C-alpha cells in the first residue's frame, strides 16, 4: 500500500474505530441474522415439518389455476401469480393494482388461494392487500421474522431499509479504511496470531479474520446497500427524474414485456405444457409462474426457473396465451444488456445461492467470520480504554449483545413452536425474541463477574440448541424416522447442525478475561503494537 501521512493514518483509524463503535452493535445484528437467513428457505421447510411435495408447480397446475381463475371476478385476472410455499402447497394470487389506504402506495389486491399440490383441494382463501398479511402466504412465521430482522431490523418501512442501507455503507467504509490502513496485508494473511491473551494477540486475530473476509465484507456491504436503497430511495428518485414521477411506468420499462393491448377473449393454452417446455429449455425446476391478462388475446405467461447447474442466473421464459414460446427474458429490461448482466449478479452475490448448499455454506462461514471481526473490533477498542467506566460499560454491552442476540433468535424459534398449536405464531415469534433479549440484558446487568456471564450465556445457548429439535418434534413436527423415510434431508440436517452447535458450545472453555488477570497480577500497561 502507498504510505499514508501520519494525519491520514490518524483520520482513517478514527473513522474505522468510531464507525465500528457507533454502528457496530447494529451491524453485528444485521450480519448475524444475515448469516442465519442464508438458509432461510431451509429454515422455513424445517420449521413447518418438511416439504413432502415433489415439484408442486409441475403437477397438474393447469386445472388448479383455471379453477382459481373461474372463482375470481374478472378484474382480478389482470395478473395471476403462482408459486409454492415451504409446505409444498400451491399459492394462486389473482390480483389487480389499487392504492393501499394504509400505506398510500399502489399495491397488489385480490384473492390469495392456497391449494393442496396433489389433490387440488382449496385449503384457504384470503382477500385483500395480501403482502400486508404474512400469515396468509408464509407458513413459517420463524423464517418471516428472521428475514425481516435482517432486512430492516424489524423497523417499519422505509426507515428500517434505510437503516440497514446505512449499515451496508458503514461495512463498506470499515472494509476500505481497514484495507488502506493495513501496511502488510498479504503478509498478515498467512501469519499466525501472537500467542497469549495480550492485546496484540487479540488485534492479530481481528486483523487475520478481517483480512481474509475483506472482499466478502465489501461485497456484502455493497450489495446489501443496493438492495436496501433500491426500492426506498433509488427507484422513486429515478422515477421522478426519468419518468415524471410515474413509478408504475418505471417498473414496466424495467420488468414487463411490451404487449399490444388486445382485450378479445381467448382461452389460455395448457399451462402444464408451457411449464414442461419451459423446464426443458431452462434445464431447471420452475419456481414462479405469472399470467398477465388471463383469458385475453394479449395474455402473457412468465415462468421463472432456478439457476441451472453451472449458472448464476435465474431463467425467465415468456409465452403468449396460445402457449407459443416467445423469448428468454433478461433479468431486467426487454433485451439482454450489460446492465441486465450486472443487475442479475447482485442477488446471487448477496444471498450466496449461486452454487447451492456449497456456496451457502461458504457464505455462512464468512458471515460468522464477519461477526467475529465486528465483535473483536469492539472488544479491542474497549480493552484499550478499560480504565474508563463508560468503555467498561460498553464492553459489557458488547458481551450481552454478542451472546444475547443469537440467544434471542433461538428463543424466537422456541416461541414459534410453542405457539403453533393454538396461538398466533406471527405474534409470539417476535415476542419470544423480545422477551429473551430483555432477559439477556437483565442477566448482563445482574452478573458482575465476566466469566460467570460468559459461561451462563454459552450454557443457555448450548441447552437451547440441543433442546430445540426435541421441542420441534414435540410440537407436532416431523420425527427423525419420518424424515428419513420421506427423504426430508433439510429437517435432519438442521437438527444435526443444532446438535453440533450445542455440543460445541458446551465444550467451549471459558478463558479468564484479560482484565481479571490484570487485576490479579497488576502487569505493566502495554502498547497495542
Amino acid at each position: 500500500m502507498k504510505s499514508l501521512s501520519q494525519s491520514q493514518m490518524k483520520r482513517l483509524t478514527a473513522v474505522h474505530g468510531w464507525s465500528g463503535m457507533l454502528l457496530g452493535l447494529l451491524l453485528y445484528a444485521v450480519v448475524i441474522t444475515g448469516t442465519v437467513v442464508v438458509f432461510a428457505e431451509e429454515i422455513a421447510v424445517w420449521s413447518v415439518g418438511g416439504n413432502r411435495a415433489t415439484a408442486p408447480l409441475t403437477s397438474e397446475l393447469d386445472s388448479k389455476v383455471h379453477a382459481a381463475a373461474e372463482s375470481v371476478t374478472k378484474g382480478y385476472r389482470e395478473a395471476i401469480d403462482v408459486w409454492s410455499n415451504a409446505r409444498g402447497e400451491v399459492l394462486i394470487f389473482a390480483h389487480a393494482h389499487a392504492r393501499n389506504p394504509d400505506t398510500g402506495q399502489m399495491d397488489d389486491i385480490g384473492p390469495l388461494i392456497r391449494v393442496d399440490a396433489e389433490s387440488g383441494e382449496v385449503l384457504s382463501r384470503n382477500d385483500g392487500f395480501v403482502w400486508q398479511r404474512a400469515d396468509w402466504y408464509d407458513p413459517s412465521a420463524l423464517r418471516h421474522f428472521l428475514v425481516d430482522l435482517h432486512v430492516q431490523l424489524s423497523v417499519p418501512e422505509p426507515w428500517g431499509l434505510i437503516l440497514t442501507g446505512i449499515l451496508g455503507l458503514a461495512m463498506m467504509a470499515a472494509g476500505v479504511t481497514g484495507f488502506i490502513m493495513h501496511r502488510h496485508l498479504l503478509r498478515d494473511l498467512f501469519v499466525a496470531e501472537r500467542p497469549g491473551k495480550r492485546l496484540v494477540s487479540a488485534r492479530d486475530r481481528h486483523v487475520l479474520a478481517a483480512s481474509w473476509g475483506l472482499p466478502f465484507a465489501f461485497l456484502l456491504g455493497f450489495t446489501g446497500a443496493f438492495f436496501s436503497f433500491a426500492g426506498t430511495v433509488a427507484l422513486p428518485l429515478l422515477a421522478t427524474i426519468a419518468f415524471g414521477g410515474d413509478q408504475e411506468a418505471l417498473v414496466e420499462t424495467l420488468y414487463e414485456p411490451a404487449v399490444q393491448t388486445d382485450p378479445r377473449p381467448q382461452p389460455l393454452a395448457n399451462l402444464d405444457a408451457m411449464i414442461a417446455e419451459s423446464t426443458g429449455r431452462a434445464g431447471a425446476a420452475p419456481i414462479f409462474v405469472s399470467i398477465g391478462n388471463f383469458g385475453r388475446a394479449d395474455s402473457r405467461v412468465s415462468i421463472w426457473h432456478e439457476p441451472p447447474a453451472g449458472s448464476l442466473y435465474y431463467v425467465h421464459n415468456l409465452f403468449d396465451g396460445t402457449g407459443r414460446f416467445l423469448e428468454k427474458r433478461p433479468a431486467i429490461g426487454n433485451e439482454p444488456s450489460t446492465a441486465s448482466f450486472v443487475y442479475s449478479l447482485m442477488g446471487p452475490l448477496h444471498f450466496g445461492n449461486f452454487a447451492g448448499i456449497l456456496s451457502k455454506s461458504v457464505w455462512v462461514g464468512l458471515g460468522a467470520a464477519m461477526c467475529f471481526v465486528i465483535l473483536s473490533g469492539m472488544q479491542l477498542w474497549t480493552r484499550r480504554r478499560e480504565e474508563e467506566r463508560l468503555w467498561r460499560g460498553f464492553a459489557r454491552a458488547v458481551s450481552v449483545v454478542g451472546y444475547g442476540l443469537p440467544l434471542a433468535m433461538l428463543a424466537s424459534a422456541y416461541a414459534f413452536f410453542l405457539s403453533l398449536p393454538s396461538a398466533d405464531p406471527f405474534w409470539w415469534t417476535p415476542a419470544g425474541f423480545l422477551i429473551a433479549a430483555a432477559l439477556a440484558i437483565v442477566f448482563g446487568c445482574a452478573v458482575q463477574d465476566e466469566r460467570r456471564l460468559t459461561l451462563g450465556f454459552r450454557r443457555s445457548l448450548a441447552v437451547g440448541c440441543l433442546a430445540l429439535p426435541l421441542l420441534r418434534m414435540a410440537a407436532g413436527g416431523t420425527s427423525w424416522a419420518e424424515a428419513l423415510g420421506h427423504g426430508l434431508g433439510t429437517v435432519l440436517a438442521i437438527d444435526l447442525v443444532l446438535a453440533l452447535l450445542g455440543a460445541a458450545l458446551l465444550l467451549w472453555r471459558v478463558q479468564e478475561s484479560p482484565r481479571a488477570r490484570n487485576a490479579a497480577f497488576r502487569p505493566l500497561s502495554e502498547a497495542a503494537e
Partner: protein
Amino acid sequence: MPVRLQRMRALVLAHPIATRWLLAGPGALLAAVLFMASVPVWLPGGSAGIDNIVYPVILAPLFWAIAFIYTCLEENLPRGAAVVSAAILLQGLMVAAALVGGGA
C-alpha cells in the same frame, strides 16, 4: 484569487474538523444521491433502454464510498471542499434542469 474565494478558503482552514465532518458526512451522501439522480440525464439508455436507470442504482453506493474515502484522505482541505462542492453543484444543476424540463 478572488476575495470571496479567499474568504471561503480561510473559513475552511479556520474550521478543519467541522469542514471534514460536513464533507465526509452530508457532503458525500448528497454527492452520491445527486450522482444517482443525474446519471439518467446524461447516460443514454443503451440497447435495452435501461442503462440510465440500472447503472446509477448499482453504482451509487460505490460513488458514496469513493466520495467518503476521498474526503477522509484529502490533505488539502480547501481543495477537498472545492471538489465535493463542484460535484454537488454540477450534478444538482443537471437534476434541476431535468426536473424543470419535465424529466430526462
